[in-house]
């Protein structure tokens, strides 16, 4: 790194460590490791695209006089003019992004040079202060009475490198802002709203009379959407199954089908495409499985798959549609150009849900209750989610980002899916009672790095606190056959913990502070106590609370990849 080699760097690092300041060598290494060449290379590609857009738009301008002289109907000219304007708008977006990348690249490159210079200057200053290279810097400074100038040099180096890091961050923030614009916006609007103008003119001209531009918002065969035809086979098969189940004489099957149908209607009423991506009938042994996507999955830029917590089932999944729509709207507000599909995934047997699609009976309630106390359902669900995600990926564009978000036991489930290698760009664990026994830290996720594991746990939410694990262990052991020793983390580690290694999102609960008594009462009331704990935490442990306010906005920032806007705090 420096002319003096490893010895100098190590000496400075050790001195910084003993002085209790941030290690300047670590900062320097991070700044030197920035791949400016990669950034330049990538945006030179973007610059070539901008040239293509410019040249194409320029050539389109030559069409105008030909059409003006060749056809008295103005519609074809207007259509071509719209296309030229869209190309110009797209080029402007790309051009701004290329310029911003150039600017950032210059700053990053200059920073590397400055870092080198700072390290050389620091070395010269240390030698000038009398330090003989090769000796332990801090010990020598203490022994020789030269601690003050050495402290000044090392802290000064850290300070200047920190300033350079801040400068880099500011420049990257400018580039991030420029990159929030979508170059497709005008072109796609054209394809949806105006592409057929020329076609209308061409067909209208044949004796039908003058043809005008089609009404705004009219459908077009030339739609930019990848089209629902790609997905129709799967979606239609699920819809056919649903139609059959609606006529079923089996109560569980029919009730679930009705619930899914109601959810589909609710999703369709949200103003977007509703697709039944997963459908498996409820039986006497299962509450069934269903997933509804809001937004065309085959055209999506971001796909967020939401797993609910206990107390849910496909028969009641219309409730989950409200959450999905809220997130879809928040994502759209953050990034209007991006197409975000939100999938309400009711794909695992959720404890304390409607049992097997029919009203609970005492036996099934006890069975379901015991399953709250370990992560078996979540692990099983995680495997199913990983499989479903693979299927969703086949329907989605190659460039689509995938995010799995789970609430409460749903967080345990999505964590289990990530632990089983689900290909995710981001993982969001909300109100998590534990990340499942499959992981100890984020390092156990084979695909998702810790920087992309976001944890939202309100401090007022008792389910996210370790006492819930202890209570679950004690109560679980009493209700079912006792294991030899209690497991004090039956649902896995607290992902909000500092040791876990995730990104703890710094947001406040919108709910009132609720006082919860977790005391263990007489045996006969244990089940009630636990059920009440889980069902009556109306204040903070509610899906609607996590999908509202600051928490919803932060979740939308993750879904749209706007990481710089996500407030992070140290783990618990």
């Amino acid at each position: 790194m420096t002319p003096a080699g490893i010895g100098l760097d190590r000496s400075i690092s050790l001195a910084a460590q003993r002085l209790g300041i941030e290690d300047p060598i670590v900062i320097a290494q991070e700044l030197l490791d920035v791949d400016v060449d990669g950034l330049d290379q990538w945006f030179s590609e973007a610059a070539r695209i901008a040239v293509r857009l410019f040249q194409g738009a320029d050539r389109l301008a030559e069409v105008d006089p030909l059409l003006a002289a060749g056809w008295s109907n103005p519609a074809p000219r207007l259509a071509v003019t719209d296309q030229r304007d869209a190309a110009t708008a797209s080029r402007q977006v790309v051009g701004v992004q290329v310029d911003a990348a150039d600017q950032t690249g210059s700053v990053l490159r200059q920073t590397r040079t400055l870092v080198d210079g700072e390290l050389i200057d620091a070395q010269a200053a240390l030698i000038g202060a009398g330090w003989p290279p090769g000796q332990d810097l801090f010990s020598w400074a203490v022994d020789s009475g030269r601690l003050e100038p050495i402290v000044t040099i090392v802290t000064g180096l850290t300070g200047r490198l920190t300033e350079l890091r801040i400068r880099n961050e500011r420049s990257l923030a400018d580039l991030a802002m420029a990159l929030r614009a979508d170059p497709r916006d005008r072109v796609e609007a054209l394809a949806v709203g105006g592409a057929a103008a020329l076609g209308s003119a061409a067909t209208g001209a044949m004796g039908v009379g003058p043809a005008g531009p089609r009404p705004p918002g009219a459908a077009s065969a030339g739609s930019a959407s990848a089209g629902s035809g790609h997905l129709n086979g799967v979606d239609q098969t699920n819809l056919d199954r649903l139609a059959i189940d609606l006529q079923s004489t089996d109560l569980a099957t029919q009730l679930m089908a009705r619930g899914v149908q109601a959810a589909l209607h609710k999703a369709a009423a949200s103003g977007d495409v509703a697709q039944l991506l997963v459908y498996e009938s409820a039986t006497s042994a299962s509450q069934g499985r269903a997933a509804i996507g809001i937004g065309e999955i085959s055209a999506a830029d971001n796909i967020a798959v939401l797993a609910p917590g206990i107390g849910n089932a496909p028969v009641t999944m219309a409730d989950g549609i409200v959450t999905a729509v809220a997130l879809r709207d928040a994502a759209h507000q953050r990034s209007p150009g991006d197409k975000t599909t939100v999938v309400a995934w009711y794909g695992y047997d959720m404890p304390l849900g409607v049992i097997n699609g029919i009203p609970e009976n005492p036996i099934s309630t006890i069975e379901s209750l015991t399953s709250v106390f370990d992560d078996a359902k979540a692990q099983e669900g995680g495997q199913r989610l990983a499989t479903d995600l693979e299927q969703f990926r086949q329907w989605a564009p190659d460039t689509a980002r995938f995010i799995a978000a789970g609430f409460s036991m749903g967080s345990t489930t999505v964590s289990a899916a990530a632990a089983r290698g689900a290909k995710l760009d981001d993982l969001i664990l909300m109100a998590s009672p534990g990340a499942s026994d499959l992981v100890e830290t984020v390092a156990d996720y084979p695909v998702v790095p810790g920087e992309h594991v976001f944890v939202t746990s309100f401090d007022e939410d008792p389910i996210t606190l370790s006492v819930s694990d202890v209570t679950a262990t004690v109560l679980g052991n009493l209700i079912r056959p006792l294991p030899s020793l209690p497991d004090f983390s039956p649902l896995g580690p607290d992902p909000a913990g500092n040791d876990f290694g995730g990104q703890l999102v710094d947001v406040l609960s919108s709910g009132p502070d609720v006082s919860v008594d977790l005391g263990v009462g007489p045996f006969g009331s244990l089940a009630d106590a636990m059920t009440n704990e889980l069902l009556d935490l109306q204040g903070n442990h509610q899906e609607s609370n996590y999908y509202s306010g600051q928490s919803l906005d932060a979740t939308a920032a993750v879904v749209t990849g706007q990481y710089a806007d996500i407030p992070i705090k140290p783990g618990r």
Partner: protein
Amino acid sequence: MAVDLAVDTDLLRQAADVLDEASALFHGRASPEVAVFPLTDASLGNSAVAREVVAAAGRRVAQAIESTVLLATLITDDAGKLRSAAAAFATAETAVPVQPR
């Protein structure tokens, strides 16, 4: 409502040719496939904003390419429609006898 149409089919065909040229420019001479994305999650640093830039850079360039491909498709379609219209006008001209005014 009857409307007089003034049409020059040769000019329409010329316009279609220019549209084809524009489409080729949008599409690019070579394959629209972009080079392999050279950046990884921490390529530009470990901060959230650095990761956001990496993720967005990959998507935006791909989306810019989508724009060019979509424009090329639309304009090629336009050219086809113009040629069809020109052919239809030419057929109509030969089928309808010119009326003295």
